[in-house]
């Protein structure tokens, strides 16, 4: 019988220690953030979109000047090209310093830009990538439609070729940051007769063209984070097409994989910090004479949530490490997205319970961060719906990872 000894490795390779170079990266980033974050001031009021754009993009410019913009982007496109280890350190330090949320830069940095890096022409890359990194271009996402939500490939916004232009007519919805965006990553139908996944094209839509109307939609927490976008005979040059005509579904999946993989790293660390903050407040909050933290069940719940969010952070590391080996973000991102968004809602529930009746005011009372926490908790309700609902993620996991049969051909 074979001895275990014959199979043995010489050294452990799951090893969470940091190299001296990574420790140095952490120290430098921490020192820079310690000065830059307070200097950038408090974020503007949520409804003031021009001020939000300015706040978010001017912060992006500071990141760029300091060499921290596009932390995962390749250096040849102006990014930092950081190693996996340093990307994770970046997110940890970023959350620790309470640095500004990526905000209006989200789509450009995390979806549009990475898609152009993989699929764009040299001209498209040169025109957009440096500007996105410097905070000079804001992007939005025109994927979903009123009749194409979870079944995104059934989208109907029509693009007809007319000379060197596509002429576009249709209706997009859930378009985040459309009010302040310069460009939109737009999915259109170029072949209505082809099977639904094969007639879609990915276009760069400049948002200042004639025929575009943006109507903000109020969300349940009371601000308009996203809009409906109406397109009526909008002419977009064929040169703005990314990938081949009718090949947009494949191009889209490049984007969606980014959306479901590393995109959550920052939010996971941020939520872990939030949990610590909730636990800290639970020491002080009193409801009808009892301190929240004196409740043993509440303490266990906090401990349990911490175990889960730590586990998720480790899972993200493991899944990024696997993706690093495979070259593209894997479907493992679906597991991270599913688990994280549901976990964040449970953290949100905990936050509201710790606040007790104070939450009814929705504004800060008695020294409690009611405004911020209630916003986070309400906003978390969108996370299990956006970017592939939890139900869609479970379908993806069960069909693509576990190999279970589809319920119905579609």
């Amino acid at each position: 019988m074979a001895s275990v000894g014959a199979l043995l490795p010489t050294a452990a390779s799951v090893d969470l220690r940091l190299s001296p170079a990574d420790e140095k990266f952490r120290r430098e980033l921490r020192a820079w953030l310690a000065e830059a974050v307070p200097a950038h001031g408090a974020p503007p009021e949520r409804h003031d979109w021009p001020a939000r754009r300015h706040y978010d993009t001017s912060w992006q410019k500071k990141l760029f000047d300091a060499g921290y913009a596009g932390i995962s982007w390749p250096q040849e496109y102006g990014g930092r090209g950081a190693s996996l280890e340093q990307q994770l350190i970046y997110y940890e330090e970023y959350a620790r310093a309470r640095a500004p949320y990526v905000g209006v830069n989200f789509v450009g940095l995390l979806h549009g830009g990475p898609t152009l890096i993989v699929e764009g022409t040299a001209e498209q890359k040169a025109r957009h990538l440096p500007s996105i990194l410097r905070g000079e271009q804001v992007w939005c996402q025109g994927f979903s439609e009123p009749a194409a939500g979870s079944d995104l490939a059934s989208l109907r916004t029509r693009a007809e070729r007319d000379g060197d232009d596509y002429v576009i007519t249709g209706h997009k919805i859930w378009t985040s940051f459309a009010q302040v965006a310069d460009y939109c990553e737009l999915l259109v139908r170029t072949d209505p007769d082809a099977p639904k996944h094969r007639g879609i094209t990915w276009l760069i839509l400049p948002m200042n063209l004639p025929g575009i109307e943006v109507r903000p939609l109020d969300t349940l927490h009371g601000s308009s984070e996203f809009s409906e976008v109406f397109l009526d005979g909008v002419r977009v040059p064929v040169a703005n097409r990314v990938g081949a005509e009718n090949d947009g579904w494949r191009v889209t999946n490049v984007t969606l994989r980014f959306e479901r993989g590393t995109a959550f790293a920052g939010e996971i660390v941020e939520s872990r910090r939030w949990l610590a903050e909730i636990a800290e407040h639970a020491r002080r909050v009193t409801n009808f004479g009892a301190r929240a933290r004196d409740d043993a069940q509440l303490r266990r719940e906090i401990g349990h949530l911490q175990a889960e969010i730590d586990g998720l952070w480790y899972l993200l590391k493991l899944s990024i490490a696997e993706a690093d080996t495979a070259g593209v973000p894997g479907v493992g991102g679906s597991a991270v997205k599913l688990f994280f968004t549901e976990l964040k809602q449970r953290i949100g529930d905990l936050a509201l319970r710790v606040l007790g009746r104070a939450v009814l005011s929705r504004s800060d009372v008695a020294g409690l961060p009611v405004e911020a926490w209630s916003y986070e908790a309400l906003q978390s309700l969108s996370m299990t719906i956006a970017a592939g609902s939890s139900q869609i993620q479970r379908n993806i996991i069960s069909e693509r990872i576990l190999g279970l049969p589809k319920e119905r051909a579609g």
Partner: protein
Amino acid sequence: MSFRPSDEQRELKAGVRAFCEARLGLDRIRALEGSGFDAALWRELAEMGLFRLRLDPAREGMGLGLAEAVLVFEELGRALAPGPLVWTHLAAQWIEGAAAGAVVVGGLDFLGAADGVLLIEHLPLLDVLLVLREDGIERLDPRTLEAAPALRPLDPLTPVHHVAKLPRGERIAPASEAARLRRIGAVLTAGEQLGIAEAAHDLALAYAKTREQFGRAIGSFQAIKHMLADSFVRQEVARASVYAAAATLDHPEGGDVARAVAGAKINAGEAAMKNARTCIQVHGGMGYTWEVPAHYYYKRAWVLEERFGTVAEHAAALGERVSEPDGAWR
């Protein structure tokens, strides 16, 4: 930093799995009901080096870390390997003969709940009983205990005896060592729980692909698919936590040991228990019978939950610490 088990570690894991599949098939598990012990299997595991995996090479050990040991225990858990494997492995450092498998060591952990019902697992097999107490590790001769067997223990492969009173034994190590052993025991047990979670998930998944109702595989229905997607995610979160805790124990400067260990025991405990339940539910009526091995997973998950701290105990300990300022929150 590196997070992916190396090719060599994967090979080690595959080697242990192949051994377990050959030696611990379902028929064998059934045959071991009651005794919960297979002397030949114990010898073979000892020869493979299970009990001296982490022992110093100067003492004929293999000098490996927990990062490797946890992969081995994951496979043993998956295969429902019976016997006081973790305790004998833990004891190799102190008890002569344990490393070679000649001496079978069991144990009791008093660091968590110090009172309660005294039940000792696998008592008739034991040559030595280790007791982890707040003030150190004690060694006891199990044959001197007055004990009454449970006639139908929860896990048919884990016999237990009720002991009315446990005398103090010979102190062989200080409090710090008792605490250290408990952490290692918790992570190795979490490794076994991860194995249970995987085995239960795999069994349910295979059944969902072949069992037909309404003219189609039940695994095509979303109600079933979504349960299996959840059990897969639980298993992967548990895996990441268990591997990370083992790596943190090997190299404490890479993280917060107590936090990582508690996290592993919590996430793996949840995954084992919930995946075992999912496995029973997916099997429908057959899942409720003794015919299908789902019940073994569920019962072993309970046994493992009660070793080295429950989910609730670890969650309470972690919850005490979450609000500690910075440091731990790096």
